């Protein structure tokens, strides 16, 4: 099964459409060595490779920030769009409205999403468009040299000594509350779980939000920071072991009765959640919200698939659009006939 592979596939291995991992790589990263964002980029690369998605069918979008630079560092054969700060949701929405056949992935940061971008984020969630929205969450503004973002921990301190006194925004809670239909929290330091969650998101028909703790080694990786590698490694608590079975690999994953939960996605893929300590059902919205509340109160770092609703209609369905990309419709289908104009003119006489 895709996600239990321990080591990355050897260079020459090809996926179901005959492409190698190299075909999914991007330009070399210019981020700091060890930046969490780079770890996420490689899992994205891996996820697309394993799903065998044609790069040309993907559109990558982002806002502004170190995190928002990353679309240049994966899927070099896909169109990419690095927009303006905090407004990626609207660009991504426009893209998928124009061409519903594209797999749209948006990459953002905590500042780009929770600070300047919270407004567009909220309204994106309400629309449930088929967009994978990734927040590379490090609690600071990396690119502008380390000021606090709206997800910074209460009381956390900058190198400069400035202390954050405002409560952090919990993006998963917001996502579930406002209508996202696939919400997960993960950790750049946990590639195995991350790739499975990404593959699930890429197979989901509505808006997926992945809040990924992604340490900023330069400005917010000091001990005590809940966005640091050490803290993450020490405190990560998995809700379940996440496995993903793509629709084209209809093998059965065997586990004892009741020891796992399967979620079928609309494209036939399945997410397999192996039970660990707790017995958690991510399809129950109310549970999801109380779980998140509990976690934030207790300061727990719970990772996994927090909430999923594979069925809720997405905005394209609500708009009842034609199957083809609107962008490619020929003039014959876009310009009404002479009669239409005559009819309107008649009504105005």
């Amino acid at each position, binding site marked *: 099964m895709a996600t239990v592979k321990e080591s990355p596939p050897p260079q020459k291995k090809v996926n179901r459409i005959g492409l190698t991992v190299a075909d999914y790589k991007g*330009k070399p990263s210019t981020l700091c060595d060890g930046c969490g964002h780079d770890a996420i980029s490689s899992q994205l690369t891996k996820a697309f490779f394993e799903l065998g998605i*044609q*790069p*040309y*069918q993907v*559109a990558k*979008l982002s806002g502004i920030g170190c995190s928002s630079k990353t*679309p*240049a560092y994966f899927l*070099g*054969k*896909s*169109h*990419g*769009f*690095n*927009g*303006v700060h905090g*407004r990626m*949701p*609207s*660009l*991504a*929405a*426009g*893209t998928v*409205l*124009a*061409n519903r*056949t*594209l797999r749209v992935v948006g990459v953002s940061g905590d500042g780009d999403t929770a600070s300047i971008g919270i*407004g*567009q984020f*909220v*309204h994106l969630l309400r629309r449930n468009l088929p967009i994978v929205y990734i927040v590379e969450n490090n609690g600071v503004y990396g690119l502008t040299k380390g000021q606090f973002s709206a997800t910074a921990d209460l009381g956390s301190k900058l190198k400069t000594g400035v202390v954050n006194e405002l409560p952090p925004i919990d993006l998963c809670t917001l996502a579930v509350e406002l209508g996202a239909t696939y919400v997960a929290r993960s950790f750049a330091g946990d590639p195995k779980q991350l790739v499975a969650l990404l593959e699930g998101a890429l197979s989901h028909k509505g808006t997926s939000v992945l809040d990924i703790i992604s340490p900023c080694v330069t400005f917010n990786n000091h001990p005590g920071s809940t966005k640091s590698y050490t803290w993450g490694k020490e405190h990560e608590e998995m809700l379940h072991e996440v496995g993903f079975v793509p629709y084209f690999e209809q093998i059965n994953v065997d586990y004892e009765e009741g020891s796992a939960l399967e979620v079928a996605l609309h494209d036939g893929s399945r997410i397999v959640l192996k039970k660990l300590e707790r017995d958690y059902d991510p399809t129950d919205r109310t549970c999801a919200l109380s779980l998140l509340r509990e976690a934030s109160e207790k300061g727990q770092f719970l990772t996994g698939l927090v909430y999923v609703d594979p069925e809720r209609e997405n905005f394209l369905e609500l*708009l*009842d*659009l*034609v*199957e083809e*990309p*609107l*962008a*490619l*419709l020929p*003039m014959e*289908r*876009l*310009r*009404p006939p*002479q009669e*239409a*104009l*005559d009819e*309107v*003119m008649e009504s*105005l*006489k």
Partner: protein
Amino acid sequence: MSTEALVREKRERHIQPEAIVNDFSIQVATINGSGSQSSNNVLMRSIFRMGVPVSGKNLFPSNIAGLPTWFTIRASKQGYIARRKEVDFLVAMNPQTAREDVESLRPGAAVVYEQSLKLDGLRKDLVFYPVPFAELAKQVTEEVKLRKLLANMIYVGVVGQLLSIDKEEIKKSVVKQFQSKAKAIALNQKAIDLGFEYAEQSLTKADPLRVEHMDKTQGKVLIDGNAAGALGAMFGGVTVVTWYPITPSSSLCEQLIEYMKAYRVDKETGKATYAIVQAEDELAAIGMALGAGWAGARSMTSTSGPGISLMSEFVGLGYYAEIPAVIWNIQRVGPSTGLPTRTSQGDILFTYLLSHGDTKHLCLLPASVDECFEFGMEAFNLAERFQTPVFVLSDLDLGMNYWMADPFPYPQKPFDRGKVLTAEDLEKLGSFARYRDVDGDGIPYRTLPGTEHPAAAYFTRGSGHSENAEYTERPDDYQNNMDRLARKFETARKHVPQPVLEEEPDAEVGIIAFGSSHWAVTEARDQLKLEKNLKARYLRLRALPLTETLHSFVRSCQRVYVVEQNRDAQMAQLIRLELSQQPGQQDKIRSVLHYDGLPIDARSVADEIVALEKKASRKTEES
């Protein structure tokens, strides 16, 4: 047409003139929310159906109910459809303003008013027609709620009778107004008849105004600019529309929704060939439009002043990353919230230069409902051809008022989708550089996401980029790209709608105007010619950037009057800059400005030009 002049002259001497036929304006003063709109439409359409050219202007408050509102119907046998400053016939239904409304009338004007308001004492030089509307309304219906509405219908009857408007045409107009709602038709017709009767029996005609049958509206339509723009967008093949409500822009998208439902749902599948999204604000609206344009859709949004300000950052991205999108700016009075329900041309400079850094944008300047339709289509061709945001600068007067026009011709021009490379093209070329000036016109080639070819992909960004769309901070890369963008803009200069020149043999004076000012200027030129024997050449600008034509026009004149509806002479400034390489030419520019929020009228323009001409001649004498 000399009667026009004659009549004016007499009026000035306060003589009761002989019959005035098909050449006057009626103003109806009511309270907004009282449903007078349908009455006014019926009145206007009846005259229109009698073959008399009309225009209707609605002066409404930024409020939902209870504040004063005025509707002015102008009948003009000469076909003038600009606002007319003077009111000849007042229907005073609003106690709040009745006094002021009456006081502002020209001597000799007529007033129909609610009897209980007792206005007849206010002036001696007017003709008064008291009508007990409230009383009469009781006879029409038992339902108290309906009475206010029907009182408004009653004045249609009264006015109809006094101005001898054809009863049959009124009937037809009522039917048109209330479509198939039989009950409403009957009830309203009843009210009108009552008004007619009352006028016949209780009022004695004492004013010279009269409507007579003509043949000047045969086959013509009455439509507002926003509806025309919506039609243009639809026939221009728009596929993604994003908007956020704002007066006076909302009705463009709201009417577009109606049209698209009717004509853009796929016959076989019953599915929509378009997406219309009400965004959460203007930042999102322009963002979605740009995302869609980037992905290859014909996308548009529509807004007004405050929305334009909010779109600043994104529009700069569109300019620099070269993404097509169409943005309608239905101008209202600024700055800030300003007067949301008043008209202006106050966003010219700001829109043209929108966003930080060295930016400039293509702007179309429709003057008529025809051009709203035409530019509604053409804007997409220009946006895709030049891969940049294109603005259509309309205004409240053009967008929300009723204009007479010939039915729009079915478009013959096919879409121009611009320089888009398909997989096949790439197969031939092998590769492409997104921002390279291959053809020397400054316009690069682009590919759309989803293009099935390994060479198709490129990376779009608002930060520095090389010809190959790679990130760069190199001084030369940056400067080369900016120079190419300037070159592209120069190319566009030749492709935007060119100015329209109306020659006037051996005229010393020239007038330059654009947009909704056109109609006042046309009428003013006739006034100047007739009344002062002052001939003026006329250049009507239809787009920014300005074009060569401007130079020759100015050269051919001694003095040039730029007429516009803003305080800071915004277009005049652009004209001066455009002339800066033509020694001496820009000294000829003078401004005629109108910025009180009301639609510009011919009289003010003519008077101002006459005054400035006097000054000029005095100067020359002195020197």
